[in-house]
């Protein structure tokens, strides 16, 4: 096999391998002036939520059903991979008036 042809085969194999799993998305939820934004997002199992805290206050993203509890220090970003499907209502434990919802579709 010529080197060129060999590369082509390799490239095809690589692209086939990467195309197999559905592409997981990263969804950003911002914490700004004591509110989550957007307040509701749609996601799928395997997606990553990027919690971006723009406030000078510490916050959390805490699922009411107990699935997850993410502490997000002031002016930091923390990620969470969604592992279970469902409609998750969440809030900030430190500021319970901050609420939101993530609708997680099965993979």
């Amino acid at each position, binding site marked *: 096999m010529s080197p060129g042809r060999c590369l082509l085969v390799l490239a095809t194999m690589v692209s086939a391998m990467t195309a197999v799993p559905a592409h997981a998305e990263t969804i950003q939820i911002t914490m700004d*002036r*004591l509110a989550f934004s957007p307040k509701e997002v749609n996601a799928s199992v395997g997606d990553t939520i990027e919690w971006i805290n723009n*406030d*000078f*206050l*510490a916050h959390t993203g805490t699922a009411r059903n107990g699935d997850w509890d993410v502490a997000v220090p002031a002016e930091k970003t923390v990620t969470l991979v969604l592992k279970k499907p469902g409609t998750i209502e969440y809030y900030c434990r*430190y*500021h*319970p008036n901050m609420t939101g919802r993530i609708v997680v579709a099965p993979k």
Partner: protein
Amino acid sequence: MLVRLSAAIAAICLLSGGAVAQSTAKPTDPQIAHIAYTAGVIDVAAAKQALARSKNKEVRAFAEDMVRDHEAVNKQALDLVKKLKVTPEDNDTSRGLQKQASAKLVELSKLSGAAFDRAYVDNEVAYHKTVNGALETVLIPSASNAELKSLLQTGLKVFQGHEQHAEHVAAALK
């Protein structure tokens, strides 16, 4: 509690109302910064007393929230006055708040158990009501610097949450 509440209101009225006889009718930004910062320091001290004395899970969680948030707001306030090159200025309202807070710390230091928890949380409800009222009616409208005003507005939102939280804890203790 009521004595402290009315005295705090009186102190704030003194600043705004008493100023009628003076050249300006409202507190200046350096005075506002001092009052807001003092109010935060007072609540952190009260929370630390609660953390040292209370064994109640809800009371302790509330006190931890107070330390975390008020320290964060005050750090932001210090950064802002530094940036604006403003020196916070002591005044009658700050002194009034501080005096009553010191008396309250002494009063609460004589209590323990459920009596302490109730007194601490009831005072937190009253204190946040007073401070939030002052922020809404005097401090925010009087602030001339936009960044200071914005910080006070964020503070008010945080402290209104504290007031609700304190009311919730107070109801649970009844």
